[in-house]
């Protein structure tokens, strides 16, 4: 089972961080205070990168450190890589105002 190191910072979080390279089709257990979740990793996750620990709907806030780090720009299944391709920051977005 969970031979891959991960970091799940708060039970409010929808993502966890890979602390080792995790290959696709791997089952990992992420743990935080009082919560333990089984996650089936869908695609390779590189060291330091994030994966969803649960389903995140398009437009839903993404939580890390118990705080909002952006919103999902697409539907994200549990176990998927979460990064700039499916997470959009919500702050400092002068481009949105200009539209």
């Amino acid at each position: 089972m969970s031979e891959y190191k991960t970091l799940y910072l708060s039970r409010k979080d929808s993502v966890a961080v890979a602390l080792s390279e995790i290959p696709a089709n791997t089952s990992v257990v992420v743990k935080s205070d009082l919560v333990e979740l089984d996650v089936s990793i869908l695609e390779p996750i590189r060291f330091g990168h994030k994966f969803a620990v649960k389903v995140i709907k398009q437009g839903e806030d993404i939580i890390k450190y118990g705080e909002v780090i952006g919103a999902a720009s697409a539907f994200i299944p549990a176990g998927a890589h979460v990064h700039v391709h499916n997470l959009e920051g919500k702050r400092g977005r002068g481009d949105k105002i200009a539209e």
Partner: protein
Amino acid sequence: MQFWGYRRPDGRVGVRNHVLILPTITCATQTAQRVTELVSGTVTFIHQHGCAQVGTDYDQTARTYAGMGMNPNVYGVIVLGLGCETHQAHRIGDEIAKCGKPVETISIQDHGGTLQTIAEVSKIAVKMVQDASMVQRELCDFSELIVGTECGGSDACSGLSANPAVGRTSDLVVQQGGTAILAETTELIGAEHLIANRAANDQVAKKAYAVIKMMEDRSIQMGVDIRTGNPSPGNIEGGLSSLEEKSLGAATKSGTTRLEEVIDYAQVPTKKGLVWMDTPGHDIEQLTGMVAGGAQIVLFTSGRGTPTGSPISPVIKISTNTPMFEKMNDNMDLNAGTIVDGLETVDEVGRRIMEEIQHVSNGKLTKAEILKQHDFGIWRIGPTF
């Protein structure tokens, strides 16, 4: 805790004893450079400012120059101007002289060109360096220290290892009665509520929100997406996906103590304890702001690795992960990657950084000092005219 420092006429304490050749205008930087090649014990920096600046942008640059000269790591200053520039050397010199240290002002136009100016400045520098070498270190208290904190080339480990460890160190510095500077306003966007909740009073909390709003409004006025510059390509490669995520990691450098005040760029803190200096996220510009604000030592965490240093203040560079510490060992002083490796706790690394501050304050050279990494950059807040 105590360290051996150099007491200056204004009562502040330095951990270095430099003679600074301070060019107030880009036209004088090459001449200043020549002098530092001739005279051991002198430092200078290259920049492209000092002319055709107006208003608050003029003021901020002037404050930065004067702050570099007044930093207690500097024994004495030779202010070098061309002669016709808007940032007049004698005005900067007069400002620095208020703190009582030796100051001389020279202009290239008055001295008949490059070669005679080099000769004149060098002669003064030789005398100043010799006088500086007579100053003895004395036992000083940690409460005399202003420690700048900074992160650059961040990766996903920054917010997990080195930044929380620096936060622990920041708490220890404050416990000792010293001052810790939190900076890089851009990289606190999305985490400002966490810091503002720790403000000493409503006024400080309001200023924290105000500097964040001003920074964010700049992108809105320009119609640009800050994300095109921040997180940077290296940050994204390291696993950071948004400015908010980076900010939440950056904010951990502030530790857990009360936020005493929010100060302007290159301003000297008026309070001890944790202070927030309003600077951009640009590594060198924020480093320069903190050094001009009197920081004698800077802690700099990095995930990707960086050579950054200051001509005035030692910069202790702390890696967030062990592979980078090994790969960029020329540039990195300490490794906090041990936290990610499960070998040390945040608390243990925080204490180790505190011990390193003591060693470096006593005279231990940092990698950036040994490699003569004399970076300098001013946060410009207006166009050149």
